[in-house]
């Protein structure tokens, strides 16, 4: 007999991970089923990584409400969970009287939504804030920020795991049925029984919703492409620079990352292919051209990578984008929390969304508190970010800190070992990359990937052909070149 869970969360994106963590505050048997080999593999990690200010979302919407409260709690979360977050502010840059009117409307909307620190600034002040930006005036949102979505999601998931949540990667839910008071979730690796189900499947939200019997939602994919610029460029961009937005689309913007890179994007086009992350050449060129209108430092020689992300947008019959749908349909699927169309600002709003999900559940069932819950989690120490004195102390405590493996990003063997033995048991090259930044620098792993691959083999006792790059089936090597396979 398969063990039975109190709650199973489907999806280990940022929202699923936040829900798992919120649920771990209670005495529940909780599992997370994720089809990929790591957390944060889809929408959660493929975006601008901006902590939004909630001014661009319609008054009264869940998006606005959760975004504003998520923004306000981000310092506390960063302190508890040890992930990179910078409240650097951001500017929305305008040039025309129409832009000014729109910015004033945006400011009013932000104020009603409860956001502080919104201010209109003139060109001179704008250039003090962001020296090279092109624009006549701007709305400055002092409380907007940037974060690392991978490390944030990893932190949420690791904290949930430390508080008792079980994680199952490579477990795609292929069917759901209900047996009396229990849901049976089918996966390629066996059935899982649970009293509660939470659909946090992101791009798969409609599929899971349909499996629960809650049908009729229209979800479209909105594809975004991005360019990543070299780390040296971040020094020239102290905060994200956006054009004047509307309530549906933020526009192509330039954003510093917490690590000093700059991203340029996103463009947006609807797609049915929810797993196609191809970045077309045409879009790369258009992004660079559009970004340059705002900020003149986008040069081909600094482009180190491109990426694409897809957001699930819930739309009505006219194609108009709707608010988040977060519901328990007691009539159709009792004890199932259904989240549909969780798109931007989902990263900012993740914990408030999770709290709301738990509230909906607690309205229907009393959960006993977990007295052992610990909200704090420590991440992997970053040698490169330490002072020389701290670096010396680290090496004295563990010689592996003195062995640099990734030269570009300054990642040591000690950090890589910690990443290989991560609490969630993730074993992919990209899992190690996101946890340490190894292979993210100028040479993109040209010098260090073989060392890291060998460390995985040695530490985990696997064969070369078993090491995956990212997704299941993304083998890196065919095996040994000579000798035994």
């Amino acid at each position, binding site marked *: 007999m398969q063990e039975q869970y109190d709650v199973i969360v489907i999806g280990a994106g940022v929202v699923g991970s936040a829900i798992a963590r919120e649920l771990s505050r209670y005495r529940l048997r909780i599992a997370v089923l994720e089809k990929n080999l790591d957390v944060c593999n889809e929408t959660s990690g493929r975006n601008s990584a901006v902590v939004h200010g909630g001014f661009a979302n319609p008054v009264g919407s869940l998006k606005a409400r959760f975004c504003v409260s998520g923004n306000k709690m981000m310092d506390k979360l960063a302190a508890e969970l040890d992930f990179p977050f910078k409240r650097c502010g951001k500017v929305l840059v305008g040039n025309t009287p129409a832009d000014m009117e729109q910015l004033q409307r945006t400011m009013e909307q932000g104020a009603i939504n409860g956001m502080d620190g919104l201010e209109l600034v003139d060109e001179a002040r704008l250039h003090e804030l962001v020296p090279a930006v092109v624009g006549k005036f701007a709305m400055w949102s002092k409380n907007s920020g940037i974060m690392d979505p991978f490390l944030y999601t990893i932190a949420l998931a690791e904290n949930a795991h430390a508080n008792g949540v079980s994680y199952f990667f490579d477990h795609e839910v292929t069917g759901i049925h209900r047996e009396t008071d229990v849901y049976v979730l089918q996966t390629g690796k066996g059935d899982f029984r649970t009293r509660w189900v939470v659909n946090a499947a992101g791009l798969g939200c409609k599929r899971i919703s349909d499996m629960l019997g809650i049908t009729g939602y229209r979800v479209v994919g909105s594809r975004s492409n991005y360019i990543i610029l070299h780390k040296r460029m971040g020094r020239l961009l102290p905060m994200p620079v956006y054009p004047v937005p509307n309530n549906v689309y933020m526009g192509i913007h330039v954003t510093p990352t917490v690590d000093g890179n700059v991203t340029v994007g996103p463009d947006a086009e609807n797609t049915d292919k929810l797993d196609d992350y191809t970045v077309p050449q045409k879009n790369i060129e258009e992004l660079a051209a559009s970004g340059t209108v705002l900020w003149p430092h986008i040069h081909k020689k600094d482009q*180190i990578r491109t990426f694409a992300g897809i957001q699930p947008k819930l739309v009505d019959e006219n194609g108009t984008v709707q608010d988040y749908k977060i519901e328990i349909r007691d009539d159709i699927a009792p004890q199932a929390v259904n989240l549909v169309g969780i798109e931007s600002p989902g990263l900012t709003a993740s914990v408030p969304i999770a709290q709301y999900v738990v509230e909906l559940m607690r309205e229907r069932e009393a959960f006993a508190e977990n007295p052992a819950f610990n909200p704090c989690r420590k991440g992997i120490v970053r040698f490169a970010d330490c002072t020389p004195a701290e670096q010396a102390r680290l090496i004295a405590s563990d010689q592996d800190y003195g062995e640099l493996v990734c030269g570009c990003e300054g990642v040591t063997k000690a950090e890589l070992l910690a990443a290989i033995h991560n609490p969630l048991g993730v074993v992919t090259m990209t899992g190690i990359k996101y946890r340490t930044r190894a292979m993210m620098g100028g040479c993109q792993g040209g010098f260090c990937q*073989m060392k890291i691959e060998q460390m995985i083999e040695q530490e985990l006792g696997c064969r070369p052909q078993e090491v995956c790059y990212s997704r299941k089936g993304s083998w890196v090597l065919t095996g040994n070149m000579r000798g035994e396979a």
Partner: protein
Amino acid sequence: MERKEVVIIGGGPAGLAAAVELHKQGVRDMVILEREDRLGGILRQCIHDGFGLGRFGESLSGPEYAQAFIDEVQARGIPYETGAAVLELTCDRKVTAATRSGLRQYEAKAVVLAMGCKERSRGSLGIPGERPSGVFTAGSAQAYMNLYNRMPGREVVILGSGDIGMIMARRLTLEGAHVQAVFELLPHPSGLPRNIVQCLDDYDIPLYLSHTVTEIHGRTRLTGVTVAEVDVDRRPIPGTEQEYTCDTLILSVGLIPENQLLEGAGIVIDPRTNGAAVDEALQTSVPGIFSAGNVLHVHDLVDFVSLEAETLARSVAAYVAGTPPVPCNLAVEAGRGVGHTVPQRVSGTADFTLSLRVTGHYRDCRLVVRQDGREVVSKRMKKAIPAEMVQLAVKAGNLRRIGALEVSVE
């Protein structure tokens, strides 16, 4: 903080040759810092032959070539530390390195930059498409095979006709992989003619010029690439696309000096070489910091790297001995048909060797150095190609004290 006369960053061919020559010049108080766990640099993974024809008059493998210098370093008792990764270099020549036994901090009279180069990656090319596994730079595939005994794939397409790419075409073939073709964006090969013959022709691997990979396919492992012909502006020509089924794409699309430490020290970088801009003593814009080898500009043959490092060593020996520096105010500019030159500044009062690359294929041409339009020196060449570095000796006697130099192909 330990004081040293000379700190050499990098224990590959440039650093080793510089160390030996410095020792010959009487310098003793020096150290080589090498980030890997042994000396030799990239030569350690270059197990093919063809090294040292110029210097030793015989064809050596990479490890053999390196060993000749390592033996000399050890015989002379030149201090070196392996597993020492330099974290920071400042403009006042303080060098911080991480080692397993702690941080090392040196204050050097002179610093030698000999860090070599890195490969251009897929990201810097901006090849559109998915991000499956199975896309390797030629050097990383070479490291997997020759240093780690790991096989990167079975069905291979190679983009770029750089030397390492062609050498890997042969290497992969010898280890049982099937290399379908090498595609080169430019209308001429990027690598040396001898590698086209010995690595491609001998194994019936076709080389297609003016072609590029326009898309990468595969969500997990690479499943194929789209290849198209390109026009004179290197833009893909619609309608010429062809699909190739493969599990491995090897990129050999150029090398870039490993210049990350230069930025921290505020050293001026020449955008044409991506290495430091140097004077005839191979001194960078920061006094006391010198540069040679592939970190200065990408060479075609290691023999020239060694020679350049020895030239550098003689300048460094003079510098630490307190010989007053000669002002180098004459700019050396790359004119028609020339991609870059090293050095970028000269004094006009000393002989120097000019290293350069041409940008196109030339036959029966003349390389000419002019100062304010007046011809200073020239060299007749039957053939000049971008793959081969050209060197030109310039005598001080022919130079005036004022006026920029320009090198061009005629």
